């Protein structure tokens, strides 16, 4: 089998992992090396599913000893071709793609062959060769294999920008049902180790300038949404804990696509089968919005959803959902509100809130100004006053108001991302809301 065939098979096998970000690491170029990294990351292409292609996202091999019901690469799946790269092939493709500016670097994962340690060692061989032989200075995101020895995880961390260990299933019960060979502790332990080591190396760097970097872009993980029946509140609570306790940079959510062993995934849980793929993608989108509220808007999971209202509203975004539940806090005076208060207004985001604060120092803002500055008035107008004035007379009864908020806004692609505009605030750090 030639490298082209392997590439096709192993790209197919890798694509259900949604993460592809190349952000969080800033490393200047060096004449003796190839490449650099930029804090906000760079998208090089967009696949036909609309997802950004930044890294060469690929498996080392799709052979796997595990039989996880949700996974296309599970050992019992006889329907797919299997392949394995040699380290040389993979290194050559990565370098050749990088020199042509196709990619920002490598995102390497693998099925588990022989055992977790053996697999982890293979992955290390590839990244070590890239760094030490090819002098590759671009971005590397490596999957940690659950169950691999801590020393191997730490060793790998010396070569890569980001490491991730996928949790995949939100609860221990779901894990027992769909991936009986894996256990939760084997996933959480390396996360804790990475967090600890990152802090250790960080402290050392303050003292000794030449301390090598250790996973400078931090760690991330992925949760599958819709293969099991957890409510949204459960999912964002887990994310909140991961951000706070494990200092994760990102939690990715992946709407479950029925590639797995359908018989094991109970039909009532399989949302894609019950409600259709479109509906599930919408749910994934809403969870991402809630995740943004956690990371960049100062919300707690318990504010976004409550025990009585544990699922995200598919009709309006999570911030509107929260606002409609808390109408007593509105309207907010745009010319006086603090950054944190502005951030809680539907239709105002991180960029526009900062614009408001910067420009109102020159004089009070009116509704005219707000529209021009990019505030989504369609939503914001119900929740704000400008110098005491409301935007016409309005019915602020939540149920009626919700009807006004229904249509999704257009033109998202015309906005600069926050990391581009405020790389220091948003490039790597979570929970940092300072201006």
């Amino acid at each position, binding site marked *: 089998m030639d*490298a*082209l065939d392997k*590439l*096709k098979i192993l*790209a*197919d096998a*890798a*694509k*259900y992992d949604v993460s592809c970000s190349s952000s969080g690491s800033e490393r*200047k*170029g*060096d*004449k*003796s*090396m*190839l*490449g*650099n990294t930029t804090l906000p990351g*760079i*998208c*090089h*292409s*967009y*696949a*036909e*599913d*609309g*997802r*950004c*292609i*930044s890294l*060469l*996202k690929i498996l080392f091999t799709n052979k796997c000893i595990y039989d996880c019901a949700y996974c296309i690469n599970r050992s019992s799946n006889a329907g797919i071709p299997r392949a394995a790269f040699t380290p040389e092939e993979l290194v050559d*493709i990565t370098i*050749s*793609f990088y*020199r*042509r*500016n*196709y990619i*920002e670097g490598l995102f390497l994962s693998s099925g588990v062959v022989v055992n977790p340690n053996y697999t982890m060692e293979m992955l290390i061989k590839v990244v070590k060769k890239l760094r030490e032989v090819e002098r590759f200075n*671009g971005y590397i995101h490596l999957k940690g294999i659950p169950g691999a020895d801590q020393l191997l995880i730490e060793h790998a961390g010396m070569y890569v920008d980001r490491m991730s260990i996928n949790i995949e299933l939100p609860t221990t019960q779901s894990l027992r049902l769909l991936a009986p060979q894996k256990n939760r502790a084997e996933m959480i332990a390396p996360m804790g180790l990475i967090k600890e080591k990152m802090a250790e190396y960080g402290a050392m760097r303050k003292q000794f300038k030449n301390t090598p970097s250790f996973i400078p872009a931090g760690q991330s993980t992925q949760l599958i949404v819709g293969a099991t029946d957890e409510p949204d509140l459960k999912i964002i609570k887990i994310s909140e804990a991961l951000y706070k306790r494990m200092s994760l940079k990102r939690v990715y959510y992946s*709407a479950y*696509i029925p590639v797995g062993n359908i018989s094991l995934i109970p039909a009532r849980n399989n949302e894609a089968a019950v409600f259709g*793929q479109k509906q599930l*993608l919408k749910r994934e989108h809403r969870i991402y919005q809630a995740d943004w509220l956690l990371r960049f808007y100062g919300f707690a999971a318990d504010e976004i959803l409550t025990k009585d209202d544990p699922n995200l509203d598919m009709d309006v975004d999570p911030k509107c959902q929260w606002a409609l539940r808390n109408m007593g806090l509105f309207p907010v005076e745009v010319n006086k509100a603090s950054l944190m208060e502005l951030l809680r207004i539907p239709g105002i985001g991180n960029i526009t809130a900062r*614009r408001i604060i*910067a*420009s*109102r*120092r*020159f*004089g009070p*803002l009116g509704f005219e*100004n707000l529209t*021009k*500055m990019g505030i989504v008035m369609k939503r914001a107008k119900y929740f704000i006053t400008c110098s005491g004035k409301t935007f016409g007379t309005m019915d602020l009864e939540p149920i009626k108001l919700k009807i006004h908020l229904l249509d999704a806004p257009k033109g998202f*692609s015309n906005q*600069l991302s926050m990391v*581009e505009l405020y790389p220091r605030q948003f490039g790597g750090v979570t929970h940092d809301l300072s201006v």
Partner: protein
Amino acid sequence: MIYLYDGSFEGALSAVHQMFHDKGAKNDQSLQLRAQYQHQIFDVVVETYPDENRISKVVKSILETFGSETFRKIGYAYLSEDEGFGTMLYRFLKRAYKLGANAMENLSDPDILAIYKAYNAVARESHRMIGFMRFAELEQKVFYAQFEPTYDLLSLVVPHFQDRLSDQVWVIHDTKRRKAAFYNKETVHFSDLDPVDTLYFSSVEKVYQQMWQAYFDHIAIDERKSPKRHTQLMPKKYWNFLTEKMPSKNLLK
């Protein structure tokens, strides 16, 4: 009163200095491109020409009053090649000197917003192009990239590639504006360059182009395909030069 300038950045700065200092100037002044101006019967026209003294005074004043970041934004706005840049710049400075050092932050002011928007469009596209640039390996290990950005941003993307691909010889060619940047592993040199009829690719180029196209096809999840989102994020105007999207006639056989 209508001022005319040669279309260069320096020409605009020089003209603006003149506009600020002309006695008896009216409020409705504009600064237009000489090459495009068509005379109307009541127009009062003043010709301006780049003047070293005026240019350095304006540059110094902008840097001292607003700082280098604002100057950089003005430079980006110029690269938008907006025909109205001259007048936009004049009105911006007129407002900005009244608002003071942080004038650029007052986006509720239309004259400030106009320059900011032009800057933003150029900054956005140049970030995009840093990702969308595609090099192909020619004979003798020269990496050649062709592109035709909406705005004139060759000079903005070059430093990125100088830092990143510092150990390979490359050429970035803006075929729309017929100019190119040449890098020889040491320095960058800019020069006019007409579109090249025939490129001589290295023997391995085809292999990697095919691999990249295959990767691009296979990485998309069929169940999530969304042509609308795809073209929104990667507009068709760029497809001619993207290895994974280019029409098949441009591909290596």
